[in-house]
């Protein structure tokens, strides 16, 4: 394997690891907190919101936005590390 290819493979591996972590969070806040564990979380109340309901209609969306911006930052750093930035 050439040096160039090794670099590409290493970059791809790190990228996939980030994706995995971010998608786990994506799944937990929406399908987890908003759907599967909604009833349990509804026992907790913050202001007028039952927590599970809040995650389903508000919280998950906030987290989605944050996730993408975190991804943008991580990838910009990763691109720099491997010299793929332009």
């Amino acid at each position, binding site marked *: 394997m050439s040096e160039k290819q090794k670099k590409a493979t290493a970059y791809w591996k790190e990228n996939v690891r980030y994706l995995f972590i971010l998608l786990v969070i994506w799944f937990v806040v929406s399908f987890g907190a908003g*759907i599967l564990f909604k009833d349990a979380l509804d026992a907790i109340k913050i202001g*007028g919101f039952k927590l599970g309901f*809040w995650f389903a209609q508000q919280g998950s*969306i906030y987290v989605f936005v944050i996730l993408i911006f975190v*991804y943008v930052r991580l990838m910009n750093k990763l691109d720099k590390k491997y010299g*793929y930035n*332009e």
Partner: protein
Amino acid sequence: MSVQTWTYILVGITFALYIGIAIYSRAGSTKDFYVAGGGVSPLANGMATAADWMSAASFISMAGIISFAGYDGSVYLMGWTGGYVLLALLLAPYLRKFGKFTVPDFIGDRYYSKTARIVAVICALIVSFTYVAGQMRGVGVVFSRFLQVDIDTGVIIGMIIVLFYAVLGGMKGITYTQVAQYCVLIFAFMVPAIFISIQMTGNPIPQLGMGSTLNDGSGTFLLDKLDGLSTELGFNEYTDGSKSITDVFAITLALMVGTAGLPHVIVRFFTVKKVKDARKSAGLALLLIAILYTTAPAVSVFAKTNLINTVSNEEYANMPVWFKNWEETGLLAFDDKNEDGKIQYVADKNKNELTIDNDIMVLANPEIADLPAWVIALVAAGGLAAALSTAAGLLLVISASVSHDLVKKVFKPNISDKSELWVARGAATVAVVIAGYFGINPPGFVAAVVALAFGLAAASFFPAIVLGIFYKKMNKEGAISGMVVGIILMLFYMTKFKFGWFGGGTEADWWFGISPEGFGSIAMIANFIVAIIVLQFTPEPPEDVQEIVENIRIPSGAGEATGH
């Protein structure tokens, strides 16, 4: 000034603005027409994506659906935003690096096959037509209520406007019109929401107002009040659903994956300069979308509470003007079953006297809350901006599928750039006419139709694209059979349970208890499984295709989008 005058003024000004922008940024080449010349900034692309994305369904129908569905409505909120995470992480950067004009372009090249390209074109056409029909209907509804024309005339006026700027401007024209449309629609959505939030809870931020106490001095939380009112009338608690967890899960997943697989959303990311910009503009798009999507559930709560307080057990003769106005459109109907002259709005179907169309909740909301005339007119302009921007984006996908993917890539490869541009314009015109026909003879109400388009996108494109990027060894046989099985399965299920074909069926016959709206997730899984099984028995993709895959994984050197 009356609502009518305000509506004419605001709709007139915004339409003039869109047409002005379209003339100013008209397309000169196929590259302008398909990918706006390829030099759109991340922010402009984010705004255009948001406007493209937020359709008549998001603007007009969604808050209304949530109003009546309560917690069950969360599927739309999570589904139509969560898909952007998939889009940003799994698709957008790689497709931008790949750097072609359309989604069938990617499928055709990655799977080195004309058959794959044609299958992708057919899927793109089915998805886009299903979706665009709903938009034209939305345009018709807004016109009929606010400009006092009948729905069909409204659809035709909408067709002419869209035709004008999509055909003239192509992607370049619609990108900059969509930037303006985003501003109009978000302003139109937020102003009444903020007014009503202050009115009801004293909190100017609707997202917080929704969880605050009522302004009437009772100290009751708004959501508790609504839960109470709902159970009193025999409905489910607002914050609790009636759908099964399995179905909610399936619908949310289908909508998310469908979002990521919609061709008119994906192509937006071909218009930016670099891979880095594609990621960033996906983030900006979701941020801009989230403003509306976190406000909508608050609007639902406000509107539902207001509605119950206004109509429940009140004399029909004392109803405010808006009630009569909406009765005329047929979207609101009162049938005095027990002849007591009062309105009974209850869960029991035999006793309920009020039928309300979902779409009213947003459109009539400012009137119900007694807001000034210009706010009511603003909502009309916003609804039109939402419907027109999405319709234009979809028409572009349809025309590009025909002129670029079929005519240029399959039938007539040596067609000149000029002629291809004219074929694209002709295809857009035909598409508008077909969409208008469906708008006048709609197969269901706006969001129901749109929801099914997501199932189709989830079942066809998403697996093929994701496998194309993340599974280097995936070959054409696998991808094609996956797409074919996915979309046919979805079409079968949808027509069986929605239109009663193939023997029809009721809720009791649903497979795994999953509704047609959620079935896209099952069809998607079927697509993945079929693709991987077929792969085991067919040859590996050629070396140069595997190199394409290696190449799209590296962000640098994206260059410009090309059609060749």
